[in-house]
């Protein structure tokens, strides 16, 4: 589903990625590991189509409508409520039975009670849960998740564990983490960035 060869990314004279090869088969789960500043976020942004590689080739066999991207930032409006944010993205992604899907995700991630509150009043962990809801809203075929456990408390992390358990083998996943212990059991492949 994803095939990258010799990916290089430079910002001015600074080289962030060099000679990266990546193969992710359909329904595969590739873990991208590396320390802070190793280029994990940059690689995932390239895979998501948000950044272009300076050199190298990348093929992603999925339409952008079928991809879910969880970024470092939550990609939701601070002044809108959880419900309003998900409704906006649900419309833009043409999610069928949008209201039911939104309600189900908010329930599953423990945000139903806070659905009518503005995101600016949420804790960082709640914002991350909402970001996960936004990522999963359109039931994407390819999930690109950048440090999905960041800011989640233990309960939130367990919710995400359950969600990933359900997705493994049914969806293609590329997940970055600086702490691979939690996800190693699910991964079918691993790319370690220096």
């Amino acid at each position, binding site marked *: 589903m994803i095939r990258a060869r010799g990916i290089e990314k430079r910002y001015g004279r600074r080289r962030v990625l060099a000679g990266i090869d990546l193969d992710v088969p359909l329904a595969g789960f590739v873990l991208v590991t590396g320390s802070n500043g190793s280029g994990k976020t940059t690689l995932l942004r390239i895979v*998501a*189509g*948000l*950044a*272009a590689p300076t050199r190298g080739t990348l093929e992603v066999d999925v*339409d*952008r*409508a079928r*991809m879910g*991207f969880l*970024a*470092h*930032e*939550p*990609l*939701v*409006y*601070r*002044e*809108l409520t959880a419900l*309003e944010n998900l409704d*906006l*993205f649900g*419309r*833009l*992604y*043409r999610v069928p039975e949008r209201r039911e899907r939104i309600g189900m995700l908010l329930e599953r991630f423990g945000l139903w009670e806070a659905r009518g509150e*503005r*995101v600016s009043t949420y804790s960082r962990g709640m*914002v991350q849960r909402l970001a996960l809801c*936004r990522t999963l809203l359109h039931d994407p075929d390819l999930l690109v998740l950048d440090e999905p456990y960041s800011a989640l408390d233990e309960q939130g992390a367990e919710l995400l564990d359950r969600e990933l358990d359900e997705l493994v083998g049914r969806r293609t996943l590329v997940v970055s983490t600086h702490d691979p212990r939690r996800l190693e059991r699910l991964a079918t492949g691993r790319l370690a960035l220096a």
Partner: protein
Amino acid sequence: MTYFADVAALTRKDLKVELRARDTLPAMLLFVLSTLVVFRFALPQGAGDDAAYGLLWVAIVFTALLGLGRAWVPEQEHGVLDGLVLAPCDRSAIWFGKTLATLAFLVAAQVVALPAFVLFFAPLDATALAGVVLADVGICAVGSLMAAMAAAGRARELLLPLLMLPLAIPLVVGGVGAAVSPEGERYLLFLALYDGVFAVLSWASFEYVITE
């Protein structure tokens, strides 16, 4: 029709965000009113209506710049623009929605500012008002694109006026011409042509501004 449904959803979102945050419209209102008050005292007696119409356009352009400078702030917070770019909607719908929302804020500021102008300075006839409306469309269409470009750079506050003011000169010429010239309709046509050309250019080029 899906395209216009996306535009409507994005415009509604901008209006809702502004109604709650109240970051842009109150600042535009205060700015345009205080500018007109300063001009009232700065304009020498007997300067004539033509000078006043010129000052009105200074106030309009800088009020619009104030609004445009904040136009993409909600998208920059929490990186929302990336989320919109990844959505499968036509990316020009993002520009269209932002243009309509910015236009709504500018018109709302003018609903207060134009009566104040009439009170302080000179009357505005139908041609002058039509000039204001047409120039608003051009300012917001081009301005939303320029503001997106400026937002991607480091010195947003400096970059936006540098990009926008040269492009606003024809709009000021058209707007002032519509107010003071006996052939005001010709200036209206000029403004409509500007709007058409630059709206299409902005619509078509927006995708290249927001993607790498």
